[in-house]
């Protein structure tokens, strides 16, 4: 059993591609997405002013606002830039002043408010109610805070299913399973060796991804590390079981690849890895929530972002565990040993 698990690990780490896809890829992905969606606030909004009488005066007033950048443009260019999103709003000076913008774009809505405010004030409008801004940045509200737990879940799913599925089917294709059957090896030991070796890699995966998020983006783990470890172990077991199930009958690598994608793709999209599953129609939500990756992501986010205690995570953890247990038992029943 120990030797089996050891062989699993050796076969894995001697496969440079596999190492990259399991450890390198999620980190590259986190890095890229973290950069693209870094929270710098709305920044300064680009606004166009159509050339005409009084254009430079309007542009100067708008430019004086710390939240706006105004450029004087001819009508055609202004139209083009508005359409391609390079300016959020176009001001046509005159009487009345015309604001041209796409009201479905958040940016444009903000620009409309800001531009109007600045122009009205410049003409002498006074505030009727005294207000005071109280700025606060909520902890864990950045995209990267949302992303890292999702990537962790996705990674556990991917490495569980890939790691287990491919080796099982490869061993079957090479008649290695048949050869093992000719020895007194216990079948359950063979299957358990996968889960055991997954556990070792799990530690590396989790430390790498969480450590990366923490060092580069300051994504902290607010809950206890013990809870986080427990959840990832449970998730990893569950997905290894799922991987065994996927690989239990397939005879060729091609066959199992298709099955793996069938299992993983819907979960990547539905389970709230890159964006919240709350965006799906309400009717779909119960189904989405029943997926193991959804449950795992929810649990991971609850611990990492909200610092939830393990006791409050009964439902998602039960879902993850049930998927794993059922898959493992079914896999053991229907496994093709030759």
């Amino acid at each position, binding site marked *: 059993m120990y030797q089996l698990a050891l062989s699993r690990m050796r076969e894995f780490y001697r496969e440079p591609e596999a190492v990259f896809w399991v450890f390198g890829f999620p980190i590259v992905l986190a890095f890229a997405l973290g950069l693209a969606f870094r929270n710098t606030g709305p920044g300064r909004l680009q606004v166009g002013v159509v050339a005409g009488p009084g254009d430079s005066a309007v542009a100067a007033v708008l430019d004086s606002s710390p939240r706006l950048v105004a450029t004087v443009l001819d009508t055609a260019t202004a139209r083009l830039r508005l359409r391609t999103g390079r300016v959020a709003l176009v001001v046509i000076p005159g009487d009345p002043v015309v604001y041209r913008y796409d009201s479905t774009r958040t940016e444009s809505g903000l620009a409309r408010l800001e531009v109007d405010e600045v122009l009205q004030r410049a003409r002498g409008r006074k505030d009727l109610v005294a207000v005071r801004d109280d700025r606060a940045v909520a902890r864990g509200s950045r995209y990267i805070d949302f992303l890292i737990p999702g990537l962790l879940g996705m990674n556990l799913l991917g490495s569980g299913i890939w790691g287990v599925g491919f080796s099982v089917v490869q061993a079957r294709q090479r008649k290695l399973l048949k050869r093992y059957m*000719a020895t007194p090896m216990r079948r359950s030991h063979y299957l358990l060796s996968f889960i055991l070796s997954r556990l070792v890699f799990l530690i590396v995966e989790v430390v790498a991804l969480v450590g990366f998020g923490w060092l580069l983006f300051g994504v902290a783990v607010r809950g206890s590390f013990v809870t986080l470890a427990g959840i990832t172990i449970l998730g990893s077991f569950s997905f290894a079981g799922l991987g065994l199930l996927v690989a239990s009958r397939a005879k060729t690598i091609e066959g199992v690849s298709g099955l793996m994608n069938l299992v993983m793709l819907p979960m990547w999209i539905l389970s709230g890895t890159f964006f919240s599953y709350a965006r799906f129609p309400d009717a779909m939500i119960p189904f989405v929530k029943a997926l193991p990756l959804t449950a795992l992501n929810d649990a991971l986010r609850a611990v990492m972002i909200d610092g939830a205690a393990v006791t409050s995570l009964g439902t998602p953890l039960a879902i993850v565990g049930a998927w794993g247990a059922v898959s493992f038992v079914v896999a053991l029943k229907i496994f093709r040993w030759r």
Partner: protein
Amino acid sequence: MTPPDSGDVEILGTPWREGAAGRALRERLGIQLQETQLADKLTVSEVLALFRSFYRQSHTVEEVLALVELEEKRKARVVTLSGGQKQRLAVACALVSKPELLFLDEPTTGLDPQSRRQLWEIIRRFRAAGGTVLLTTHYMEEAERLCDRVAIMDHGKIIALGTPKELIASLGADHVVDFALTEGGISQDLVEVLRQMGGVNAVRTGSDGVSLTVVELHRALPALLALLQQRGVELSLLTTHHATLDDVFVALTGRQLRDT
């Protein structure tokens, strides 16, 4: 390991089954399968350590490496081994359990003569140490050299069983004469005459010539040459050899060895 179509499989007096009894039986066996490809990325000694771990009692990795003379390759990955070395490793995996009974499935198929002899040596040593070997092979020469008893199978049925000597003796003659004529075809009446000739046991014609099994070569051969001269035909080929299992196989199945 393939479920039986019918009947029961019994090895060393124990039925072949799954579960605890099956495991106890497997402890006593060593099996090499023709089609198994071991994990490429593991080294020779890692593969042996893995197989060793399945058994309650076994050779150490070093012992079994010595048995198959792969000591120099202990750190080499399986993928880098030659065909002969891979085959010896497969046999080593079968030997590691100190088996009473060793199954070898065409262990030398596709190997160069050098590697074949090395494997034969390994098998001989195992036998000399008191082990039993069940070997399947396409090479009659191999069976003749290594085996005490040979069963010839054709279309899944045993068609002959005995020691190599007995099987060869069953031909009823100990020499084989092969010849071919420059003129090509051999007339039917020539075949008849050959059949009647003294000392000739059987005549078989093929596309490449005629094959006679004869008892007394020193009498049959001059007779054959005289006959051919009398008929005025010329020989393009004439060879004689002691009868081998090859000849037994061909005589029994009526065709040359097929690759099935």
